[in-house]
């Protein structure tokens, strides 16, 4: 079945120059492997489309059940230069959690 990531993960995002970072954290440890399998850099890049002009990098943090993504050239020039209302990418966290992913049909989701 398909579910929105927000059912499986929480997240926080921020900025470094024109790059936004989004860390997504599994709400239960057992979700981590699903996130790792489903939330690939390619799919994140596709999810954001034109919003992310550069590449997407992914880093694994199994110790805290998290994946950290760097979205390059995603902030309209970044920080003080950008014309975007969300200049620091503070809300990109939940934009990523809108993504739909495949999970096993018998997965218990609270």
């Amino acid at each position, binding site marked *: 079945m398909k579910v929105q990531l927000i059912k499986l993960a*929480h*997240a*926080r995002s*921020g*900025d*470094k*120059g*024109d*790059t936004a*970072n989004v*860390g997504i*954290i599994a*709400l239960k440890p057992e979700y981590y492997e699903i996130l790792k399998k489903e939330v690939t850099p390619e799919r994140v890049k596709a*999810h*954001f*489309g*034109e*919003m992310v002009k550069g590449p997407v990098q992914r*880093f*694994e*943090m*199994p*110790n*805290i*059940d*998290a994946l*950290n993504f*760097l979205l390059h050239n995603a902030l*309209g*020039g*970044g*920080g*003080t*230069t950008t*014309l*975007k*209302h*969300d200049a620091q990418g*503070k*809300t990109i*966290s*939940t*934009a*990523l959690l*809108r*993504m739909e992913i495949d999970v096993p049909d018998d997965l218990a989701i609270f």
Partner: protein
Amino acid sequence: MREFIRIASGQGYWGDRFDAPIDQVREGPIDYLMMDYLAEVTMSIMQKQKSRDPNLGYAKDFIRLMEVLLPDLVEKNVKLITNAGGVNPVACMIAVREIAERKGYGGLRLAAVYGDDILNYLDALIASGNELKNMETGESIQTIRNRIRSANVYFGARPVVEALEQGAQIIITGRVTDTGLTLAPMIHEFGWKWDEWDKLAAGIIGGHINECGAQASGGNFLAGWKEVPKMERIGFPIVEAYPDGTLIITKHESLGGLVDVRTVKEQLVYELGDPKEYITPDVVADFTSIRLKQVGENRVKVFDVKGAPFTEFYKVSVSYFDGFTCIGQLTYAWPDALEKAKKADEIIRKRIEYLGLTFEEIHTEFLGYNACHGTTAPPVPDPNEVVFLIGVRGNNKKDMEKFANEIVPLVLTGPPTVTGFGGGRPRVREVIAYWPALLKKEEVAPKVLTISVI
């Protein structure tokens, strides 16, 4: 050696809640208070203030805070470490000395950490072979040389430790890393060596948790913000540090907020790059080594942290003038709010063309519709209202001002049921952009000046 020390966060950025550090000192025991005031853009603002008055160039709010808080710090023997000194830490220290003298705290030791401001030495540094090229784009610094407004090296914990060893109770720094402010007291108290990488890395993790204030203790907490008690008086985080590098993240019981594994995790990933290489001047911390455990109510243990040797470079933050921006807005109400906002956008763009204004970028967003989430957000059928935001960026200030005059006239000349123009003409703002670079450590040395209040 003390069994443990408590390092409290009092400020996540310049403009954070004014009474948070006061609560940290008054509502329970702490040994150190750390306060972060600096962001990239802050340094250029401070440099401008200093150019107008050589006695300015620091966070003046901090002086206002010292009027209130210094008596508590003295009475409770709490040490304060802050980068509120901006581009003029010595002047900031002198302003604090004036307060301390007036209040009669003879013997109180104050320190300023400086030497990070390399604005006046840039040409000499470049001439002697330091490229200072942009870390992200590889561009030469010559492309912005005549537009530079500030240039600062990020120092680590070393000069702060030196100030502590000289007996300072109030330590005011320039551009010391946010994490270094929390690491320094651990090194000082526990006698950690400069090559005990795992312990130093643990201190850096403590710093990363402290540096954004309440973001580690229930603020901006996605997983459970509805559960966070008393956000109106949220308790900022406190790092309880132990000699072996174990940390307990906690907060004062009497204050609001929440510290659990989830709040700490959210802060750990904040503004994170490669988690295996969190580079600081003192150590490279490995965020994939961190282990967390809830060990009590509002108590999270952080342990098993690993670190690796530092690099041979300091990071340098250069700010430079990069043109102007102007963002105007109007609010359109039901019915057809989005259509009206889109029509307004079309009109403004045609006006820009008609008036012959040139910009590098024109950017439109519809707030209440998709400004935050863009194309990832589903369409909203028939919104009750939409805020039309249109921004321009460019180098021609006159064109900017003409653009600024174009927004409010839409109220009487454009689509109906429009409001939200109370602010009048939007402001034309200078853009101060940020240039990250690296500098060999031997090129610059931190300085520590310690004085006693008479």
